[in-house]
């Protein structure tokens, strides 16, 4: 089921937490929503789900606006724990089972086992990671068509993080649409086929991950000493980012990677290579947009 967000704006007083955001999420895709802290990811999710009233804009799920019935096939894992401290794991499972017609008890039991959650345990005695794991169990046992997951791996150990990613990928393979946010860009890169990057409430980059990667390259040169003069590089319109770590210079370039590689060679680089951009580079490039080229020096 596809999701369409058109011109979504949410303001708190004069502050626009979400500013004219438009995103199209194809059915059956895994969509990663990226952005630094306070970029508006959680507010976007809340507006999508009616938990916060959008100031303007339209959100459609499978072409239809949100109604209570939408939640029969949509599930949400919030960023922070919203579980009831005084209730047990079993009672939370029971709560979902009694509400959602699609709830699969067998699946819930399997997932509890996967995350090693004790059904008798009260939430108040559980760690942050265990709470996140339970929220994931509740979401995936519902077997919905749409998952909206706000940092679903937060607080989880690497093994369980990997399990959540596998659940996301499997859900999409089964036809579900997954929208998720994470600060761990590696996870988004592994799971997502589409992304949008939010900054200051605006979408600063969006599209299919493969398309985004194809557009830009990294040109990396290794010099004899770290006394390299980068004059001229930062003003080159083809370069969006210049990074220097000791003897290594990395250029994020939009075009002309071969020419720039030759330029690095002529500047004295001992070896030069051209590599594809990873999502982290794309993300950093997007959130740094505004300055034509950043020179970032690392010790």
């Amino acid at each position, binding site marked *: 089921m596809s999701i369409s967000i058109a011109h979504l704006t949410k303001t708190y007083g004069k502050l626009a937490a979400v500013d004219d955001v438009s995103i199209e999420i194809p059915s059956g895709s895994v969509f990663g929503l990226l952005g630094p802290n306070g970029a508006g990811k959680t507010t976007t999710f809340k507006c999508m*789900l009616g938990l916060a*009233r959008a100031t303007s804009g339209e959100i459609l799920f499978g072409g239809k606006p949100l109604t209570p019935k939408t939640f029969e096939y949509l599930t949400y894992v919030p960023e922070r724990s919203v579980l009831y401290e005084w209730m047990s794991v079993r009672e939370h499972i029971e709560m979902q089972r009694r509400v959602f017609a699609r709830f699969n008890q067998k699946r819930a039991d399997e997932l509890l086992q996967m995350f090693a959650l004790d059904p008798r345990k009260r939430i108040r005695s559980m760690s942050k990671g265990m709470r996140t794991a339970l929220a994931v169990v509740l979401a995936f046992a519902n077997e919905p068509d749409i998952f909206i997951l706000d940092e679903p791996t937060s607080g989880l150990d690497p093994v369980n993080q990997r399990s959540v990613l596998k659940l996301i990928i499997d859900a999409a393979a089964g036809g579900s649409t997954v929208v998720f946010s994470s600060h761990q860009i590696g996870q988004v890169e592994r799971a997502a086929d589409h992304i949008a990057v939010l900054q200051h409430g605006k979408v600063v980059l969006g599209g299919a991950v493969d398309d985004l990667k194809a557009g830009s390259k990294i040109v990396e040169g290794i010099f004899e000493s770290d006394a390299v003069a980068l004059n001229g590089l930062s003003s080159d319109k083809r370069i969006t980012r210049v990074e220097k770590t000791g003897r290594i210079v990395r250029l994020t370039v939009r075009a002309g990677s071969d020419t720039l590689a030759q330029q690095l060679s002529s500047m004295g680089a001992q070896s030069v290579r051209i590599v594809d951009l990873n999502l982290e580079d794309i993300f950093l490039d997007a959130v740094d947009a505004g300055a034509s080229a950043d020179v970032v020096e690392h010790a």
Partner: protein
Amino acid sequence: MFYFVEYLRAMRAIRIVGIILGILLLIGIIFRLSFLNGASPEAYVTTLQSSPTAHVSQQTLADGSTRITIDDPAKHTHAVILRSGKTVRMDVTEPSTSARQYHDTVSFGSTSMNEDAHKGVSHVTMMYKPGADFTLGGLFQISILIGVIVASILAGPLAKENDGHLELAWTKPVSRERYALAAIGTDIAAIVVSQLGLIAVVLLGTAMWVMPTITAGRNAAELILFSLLAPVAWYACLTCFSASLRRGVGMVLGLGWFLALVIPGVYAATSHTYNPVGIGVHAIFMALAYIDPIAYVPSMSPHGAHENMFASMSVSLASVALLAIAYLAFAVLQWRRVEA
């Protein structure tokens, strides 16, 4: 069952009430067992009658009452028991257990006793009713207190959701209004169950001593309705004033009790004042008292009449019903506008 969380909360409250009532009943049973066969006037009459040296005669008087005369010369005891309708009067003359002269008066429930001891002879006059009469309305009125206590425990279900659970509550396939009303309905059911539990315990506790009899009494329907609605109105009031709060529901519940009792108190205390400030204060507190459900709860006069600061029982009943509906409606309207 999308109100499962509220159902669990209500069950917890009922469990607590059940434990407290169970403890009270247990104390009653222990108390009764410790006085087995010795405490009731009927048991005393039986002891006198069953003495092997007693001469017992019984006659029916012209007014239908019966008189039993027990004469026991061996024990120097003479007793006359007069049963008239539901009242029993007993006059017993017997040797005193103490040599000194004294006079005692004891009153316990429907039993009253006078004892005069003089020169080694004791004369006891006892009047009692061998049963306990309850009116249906009165029984329900007893339950108001536990009703408002449970109402206070369960009140503010919407504010409890506001405190970090809206993402769960509002992502269920049900409208916010329906969710809120179902949660409120669950709590109201729990309040009523706790009231019925108290009534059952009162009757069981009484039955351990004397057989309770229940009559409809005056205005039974009105009293029952009022007794059930007053705690609901109180619950509604607290729920309304906390519905849009994210935190601090505990403060509303705690302060609510204080204000609910202070308002009718100040209203009553300033009712006979004649200085302008006092009249002004009285007017303010009178207005507040009209929207305070606790101010409508009657105190029982010795004659069982409805006494509270307002007019008749009918007016009070209509007022608490209106308050309950208005507060609940306003609570739901507020809650649906809250943002997570």
